[in-house]
């Protein structure tokens, strides 16, 4: 475990142009800081253990202000415009040709203008790798600690907003009308991030450890990875959850049930048949890493039988 290096220049918000047209990912700069991760109580229906609460330092990073949309994800899916690169290509050198290509979804309920859903954590990570190759900047999924830090946006209460005003901020079971919605229709938190609570839950990098945060380390760059496909954490609750499951500290995690209606063997690396409530957003850290280190964040495929 290396101690995170301090970022000297303050980060600024920017727009990542994915294809030289309207397909833009707005990135919010998030300053470094300390916060208390987790909560003192057991979590909604004791699903994901989120105690004991502990102090975490998080390095500065950028996070996409919305969940990644189906429009943008399609470009990764079809790979027809790989030759178009960002005008202000970054320092990262990564060949795009060798990147894994996602297969077509078997059953697809993805909708225009909405967040991409039914994606595996691996698919989300490979999108990040592809986006990195397109732009020359290192994108990845957030660590769980980064995600909660961004969700809390400096708050210590269960939500980043007044719970009486939840309908202004979040899509959940009581107001979603049984479906997900375009990201960005509700109010953002004070970091300028939309839909951290509700709409679609979001993949983070970490595996879920039922021992909770007992053994967690004091570093925002720490994330728990095991050589197993399940369980991995997704955060924020979704359009089909009760509001309690949307709290900043709530954790949920994957299981083979998310692919139970995949009739094939091996099952898809890329798609869940039973995750219309899970999408993701991306972060970019300000650190320079070599390819091996970046690959640790992006992960590798695990065949599922």
């Amino acid at each position, binding site marked *: 475990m290396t101690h995170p290096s301090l970022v000297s220049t303050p980060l600024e918000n920017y727009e990542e142009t994915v294809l030289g047209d309207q397909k833009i990912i707005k990135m919010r700069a998030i300053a470094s800081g300390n916060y208390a991760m987790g909560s003192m109580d057991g979590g909604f229906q004791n699903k994901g253990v989120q105690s004991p609460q502990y102090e975490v330092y998080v390095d500065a990073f950028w996070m996409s202000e919305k969940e990644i949309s189906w429009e943008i994800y*399609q470009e990764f*899916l*079809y790979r027809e415009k790989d030759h178009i690169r960002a005008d202000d290509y970054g320092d990262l050198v990564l060949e795009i040709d060798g990147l894994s290509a996602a*297969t*077509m*979804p078997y*059953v*697809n*309920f*993805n*909708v*225009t203008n909405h967040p991409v859903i039914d994606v595996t954590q691996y698919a989300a990570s490979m999108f990040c790798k592809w986006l990195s190759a397109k732009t020359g900047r290192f994108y990845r999924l957030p660590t769980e600690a980064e995600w909660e830090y961004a969700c809390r946006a400096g708050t210590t209460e269960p939500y980043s907003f007044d719970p009486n005003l939840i309908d202004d901020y979040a899509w959940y079971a009581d107001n979603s009308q*049984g479906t997900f919605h375009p990201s960005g229709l509700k109010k953002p938190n004070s970091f300028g991030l939309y839909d951290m609570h509700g709409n679609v839950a979001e993949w983070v990098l970490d595996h879920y450890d039922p021992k909770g945060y007992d053994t967690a380390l004091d570093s925002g760059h720490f994330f728990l990875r095991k050589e197993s496909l399940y369980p991995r954490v997704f955060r924020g609750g979704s359009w089909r959850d009760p509001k309690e499951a949307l709290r900043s500290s709530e954790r949920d995690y994957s299981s083979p049930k998310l692919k*139970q*209606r*995949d*009739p*094939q*063997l*091996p*099952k898809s690396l890329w798609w869940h048949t*039973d995750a*219309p409530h899970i999408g993701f957003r991306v972060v970019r850290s300000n650190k320079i890493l070599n390819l091996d280190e970046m690959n640790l964040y992006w992960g590798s495929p695990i*065949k599922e*039988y």
Partner: protein
Amino acid sequence: MAYTGAGLLASKLPTQAHAYVAGVGEISVALVGCGGRGTGAAAQAIQADPAVRLVAMADVFDDQLQNSFKGLSMKLADSGQIKVSPETMFVGFDAYKKAIDRADVVILTTPPGFRPVHFEYAVNQGKHVFMEKPLATDVIGIKRILAAGKLAKQKKLNVIVGLQRHYQKNYLTAHELVQKGKIGDIVSGQVYWNSPGVWVRKRQYQQTELEYQMRNWYYFNWICGDHILEQHIHNIDVANWFIGSIPLSAQGMGGRETRKGRDHGHIFDHHFVEFTYPEGQIISSQCRHQRGCMNRVEEVFQGTKGHLRINSENFASINSNNGKSIYQHVDQGDVNPYQQEHNLLFTAIKSGTYQFDDVPNGANSTMTAILGRMATYSGQVLTWDQAMASDLKLVPDLNSFNDLAPVVPNTEGHYPVPVPGVTTFI
């Protein structure tokens, strides 16, 4: 490799001495068609009952069979239920016979063009069957399926067809409610399979034309039946099921707009069909394989009293025509329908009961989709009876990869595509 020359091997060695022989109370299963779906179905069979023993596998492609065996072993070796040995792995165009001969129950999961021949053989040999949809790609195939189905019934052989919505709780519940008149009489409906499309397997060096078509099978009508049949059959099947009848006629339109490369064979990338049913009900069926468009895979019905929206994500919603919610399906860990098909099949077989004859429905749904395809290919109104009189044979008898392929590309590598208004009948 012994298994590639299984025919030769069989004449030299008394294979029975080597092959696994099912013990008392055990149910032997053969897998015919070792792709991703077949491998999944074999796993479901094994998981359905501890008495199941997978004893033989067959495919035209050795690599596919080996991958399937490897996958099954990774998942289920500990079960002790995989009893396949190199002597019972059969590769080739006649491999299915050797595998079927060794089992009580067979899983038929090749591409649909071969289904009639395989099903016929399985029934003649007195086997119970799980087979994937669709059941054929042409009317000649449908007739063979129906005839074999009759024989299966006489022999009391259980047959389940992989139209798994019939084994999914939200569909079963909604169907019961519709039967009870909760939406009144169905007057119309819309059924959809609109998606970006499926995989492509590019032509490889040294492949014969026939091998290429059998690898990249999705794009060839003779073996796949076009996506209106191969995928959209699920939604068309639901229309027949909920209305309680097959259609009288169909008319529609379709073509190739965005998916028309050399590796896309000659099937359409979109079809829109109007099916007319005996009491005047109209079902609009749309299926599309185009990127960047609206995606939707579900069924909707309008009745005299209410309407239903239903899909495979364990979703069903019934509302009255004056806006009142009548039923909202809640997924309470509903059993996976793909697993349920096998659970029911093996329960019936184990208890020695004859319970399942999915052939008439499977054949009707297959035929309905073929009727839709004939309508979009020809651009004409076609009745069920006209279509059933078709004697066009899409699937020839094939014995080797060196046989002439059923369709041949032109000098630019493109295949003949049906032209509405010109194509008479396919």
